């Protein structure tokens, strides 16, 4: 066992997880599973690192990962979009909690656990992991999809319940916690706090945030840092109100979702979130104590199957009652087939309070590992899985409607002309092409420059791959880059060449001619030199004595 410092441990985490993620591409292993595997490898299996709790900075990075992940989800979903799925989210969220808690309790008793252990284990099985599901939905790019929104709504409801249950379980040693008054107080505190925070965020979204963020949008670094500061401010407020950091981060994101900066912000935050969340999952794997689980493999298997099959089953039952299609019901239901990182906390609380045996912690960890890994595949490949199961006819018992749900089709452009950089030149070209009947998509980082253009517009930075993909660049008929940034122009042209899109670049200065020619654009617009030649010809006309 080496005695590594914080950066050494972080380095080991990153290098091992990168190796596993890249190698596991062959079997299409979801990155979450790779991270957990990396954690298991460096922690319980090889013993390369000490428990993560000894490195405060690693824990903080993991927490930041969760916060940023939920902030990004909030940025995707405005209040209206969440409200559309509110009823089903509450019904399914609460219904599943009740079913799993009761069913799990019965199963635990049947498996031979005592009453107190059964309470803790069944509670641990009750909650699905918001972080796992949101990360996978984000990876699938399905946060916008109807089932994605329903799932996020359900998990938010469950996060609220988690707060209440955590408080309840923390006081399980004292008889006061079971008092109806204490339960009512906890419930009131959670829902009151949630309402207050929601109202505060919506007011901020309307009155406090728009002006500063509109100003900051012209300074991308400032926008980035201010948004993060806003997010952490709401998270801390949520924690003061005894709510979870996830709820705070989600509401902070939702307050910005309506503002035009949300897209750009999402692109900028994503890499940072990916790094921090990877640290979180690897830490989770590294901290798992699986030693005793082998002796309880039957219990582990039974409980895992209960979560993997029972939870989706009850979800199908509830969601189908709300008139959603069978496919939507199925896609939503598979998202709950795992237990949460909170489950480990519940079990650990029970152990530290002396209410359950240490072996129970190992069983919960093993169930967590099995269900998270399996459900990750189920979520990522939910469509082919649906086709297979639907083909057997077994889903008919839920009586969900067979017609697909109506979702607004995503607007996609094809055969269009992409013009980047709305300075005088880019603007003139965009307008000229628009007048000639081309479908033009004008792009600039500054949305003010796009405001009065008659063509399609998009605000953002074309250095991000996701941005140019959203702009439909691979399907464009022609691309023009009028930016005065050599490196960005080169990258843009390079991508155009990869996708076979003809591209014209603005060579704004003689010194950029060589570097721009290297990427072989189809045309170089030489403004200044052309202007010099025009001056000479105008001069020739004027200067004749």
């Amino acid at each position: 066992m080496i005695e590594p410092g914080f950066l050494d441990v972080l380095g080991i985490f990153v290098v091992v997880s990168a190796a596993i993620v890249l190698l596991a591409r062959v079997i299409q292993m979801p990155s979450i599973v790779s991270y957990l595997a990396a954690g298991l490898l460096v922690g319980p299996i090889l013993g390369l690192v000490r428990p993560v709790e000894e490195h405060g900075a690693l824990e903080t990075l993991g927490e930041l990962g969760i916060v940023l992940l939920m902030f990004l989800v909030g940025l995707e979903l405005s209040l209206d979009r969440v409200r559309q799925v509110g009823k089903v989210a509450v019904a399914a969220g609460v219904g599943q909690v009740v079913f799993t808690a009761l069913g799990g309790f019965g199963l635990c008793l049947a498996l031979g656990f005592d009453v107190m252990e059964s309470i803790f284990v069944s509670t641990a099985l009750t909650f699905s992991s918001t972080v796992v599901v949101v990360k996978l939905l984000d990876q699938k790019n399905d946060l916008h999809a109807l089932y994605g929104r329903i799932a996020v709504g359900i998990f938010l409801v469950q996060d609220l319940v988690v707060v209440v249950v955590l408080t309840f379980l923390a006081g399980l040693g004292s008889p006061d916690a079971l008092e109806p008054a204490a339960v009512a107080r906890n419930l009131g505190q959670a829902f009151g706090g949630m309402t207050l925070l929601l109202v505060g965020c919506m007011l901020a979204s309307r009155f406090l945030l728009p002006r500063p963020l509109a100003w900051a949008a012209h300074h991308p670094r400032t926008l980035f840092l201010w948004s993060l500061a806003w997010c952490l401010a709401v998270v801390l407020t949520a924690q003061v109100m005894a709510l979870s950091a996830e709820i705070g981060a989600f509401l902070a994101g939702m307050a910005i979702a309506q503002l035009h900066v949300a897209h750009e912000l999402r692109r900028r935050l994503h890499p940072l979130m990916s790094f921090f969340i990877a640290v979180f999952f690897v830490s989770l794997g590294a901290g798992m104590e699986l030693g005793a689980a082998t002796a309880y493999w039957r219990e582990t298997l039974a409980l895992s199957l209960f979560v993997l099959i029972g939870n989706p089953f009850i979800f199908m039952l509830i969601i189908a009652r709300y008139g959603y299609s069978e496919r939507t019901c199925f896609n939503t239901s598979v998202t709950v087939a795992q237990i949460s990182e909170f489950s480990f906390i519940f079990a650990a609380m029970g152990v530290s309070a002396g209410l359950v045996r240490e072996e129970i912690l190992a069983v919960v960890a093993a169930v967590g590992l099995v269900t998270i890994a399996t459900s990750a595949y189920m979520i990522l490949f939910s469509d082919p899985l649906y086709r297979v199961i639907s083909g057997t006819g077994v889903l008919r018992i839920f009586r969900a409607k067979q017609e697909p749900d109506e979702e607004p089709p995503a607007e996609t452009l094809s055969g269009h002309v992409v013009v980047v950089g709305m300075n005088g030149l880019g603007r003139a070209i965009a307008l000229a092409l628009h007048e000639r009947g081309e479908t033009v998509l004008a792009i600039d980082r500054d949305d003010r420059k796009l405001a009065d253009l008659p063509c399609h517009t998009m605000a953002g930075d074309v250095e991000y791959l996701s941005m140019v993909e959203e702009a439909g660049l691979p399907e464009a008929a022609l691309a023009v880059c009028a930016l005065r940034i050599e490196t960005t122009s080169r990258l843009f042209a390079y991508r155009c060449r990869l996708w076979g899109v003809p591209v014209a670049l603005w060579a704004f200065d003689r010194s950029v001619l060589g570097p721009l020619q290297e990427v072989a654009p189809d045309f170089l617009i030489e403004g200044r030199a052309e202007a010099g030649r025009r001056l000479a010809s105008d001069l020739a006309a004027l200067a004749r004595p």
Partner: protein
Amino acid sequence: MITVAILLFAGAVALGLAARLRVAAGPLGILAGLLVGALGLPVDDHLAQEGLMLSATFLVFAVGAEVDHRHVQRFLPSAVGIAVAELALLAAVVMPVALWFGFSAPTAAHLTLALAASSTLLAVDVLRRRERFFEPVGRLVLGVVLVEDLLIIVALGLFAAAAAPAGLLGGLGGLLVLGLGVIVTRHWIGRLVLVRLRLDEEERLLFVLALLFVFMGISRWTGLPLVAGAFFAGAALSGFPVGAVVRAYLASFSDFFSVMFYVSLGVLVAVPGPAVLLAEIAMVGLVLFARPLVLLPLVRGAGLTYRGAMEAVTLLGQAGELALIVALVGAQAGHLDETIVGALMIVVVVTMTVAPVLSSDRVTWALTRRVPFQATLAPDDRPSGHVLVIGFGEGGRAMLQAMPEETRRDVVVVDDDPAVLIDLRRQGIRGVRGDGADPEVLAAAGADQARVVVSTMRRMTDNARLLARLPKTPVLVRVAWEQQADEVRRLGGRPVIEAEIAEAAFLRWYQGVRG
């Protein structure tokens, strides 16, 4: 989480202020950190220290990622010469003084390195903001700071390795391995993994971060400081197209961690008392004024105009993030005490704040005008019916090349830069030195007798003054956009609009391609 939140709030305020006041964010970040410390806010020092280490890593990684010699183009040999000469001169001044004051040789060496370390990120930021990044001045400045960075990292690595169990040989071996790693990654691995394999963004990011930590691991095993590995890892990813592909991810990390770095530093490092004020003033003077003076002839020798040279040397006259890294590494090795680190922090704050001001248009033009050089027409040369060209940049050169020989003989150029006029004189073209908006200069160049005037001055206020001065003479004014053209027409001038000409050229090509 509270510690991160406090550091982030302080950084957010500093960044907002920096954007509003148009000054460098780093110094304000440090000041914000000092304020956090002074207010006694509940910051976990251990967490802040670990955060500082991580931030320093990413900061140096970001600096390394700028190391693409292709940006520097033909200025690379000049940049190497300037950076080496500068480092040698600083060593010749700082080392003896530090030794005379009783500091040890390693302390003196670390001080020299810190004072030689201009901020790459500040230079890049300022040049990009002024749209000078791709002009000769931008390329030379970038070249100098990148060579400086490389020299300092190598020297820092060797100092550290000499004291490590692996020894100097181990350090040299480590540098060799890192250098090979850079070459292999730039030419093969980076291209294969980041470009040819169709990875998603998360996989690419993981690869980039893993590469960073592998390079840092090599540094650690060979006794080099971790920042050496971070720098070389950045350099390994700086080439095209790999560097361009990962730039967007790195920007998020660099934005976040650079702010955290400066604020954490402000929180953790105490400001030294007045006892070292004189030393601080001497170091600031050395960086802000002595270094530019020494650099000026070298930069001029690289072929920059006087104005470009003024801008370059004043922009290089600062100590930046790498100076702080050198200070931290020196402190970690026990060569620098907290007072010296604090004093260097003050030097960084002052010089990073002042350098952008000194390198601004207004100051560099004012300095250029003080260069002792006379260029005026001969006493018996009273031009009349000539072509007066005011301002001589790329457009002016293209115009001159396109002119018939007989018209070219009639040209008189007004420009403020002696180097431009010397070059024109070699071509047999008459020149008057001065500001094209100055009536005296215009009179000296015979503006009233010119049959046509061409202005390529950038500022519209200067063009407006010129047009008001010459109501009867045809004046062609080169402008960038249509909006400026309206103003020129209103004042009686004839605009030549760059954007319109470029657009016409594009549309001709477009007609050919799309029919």
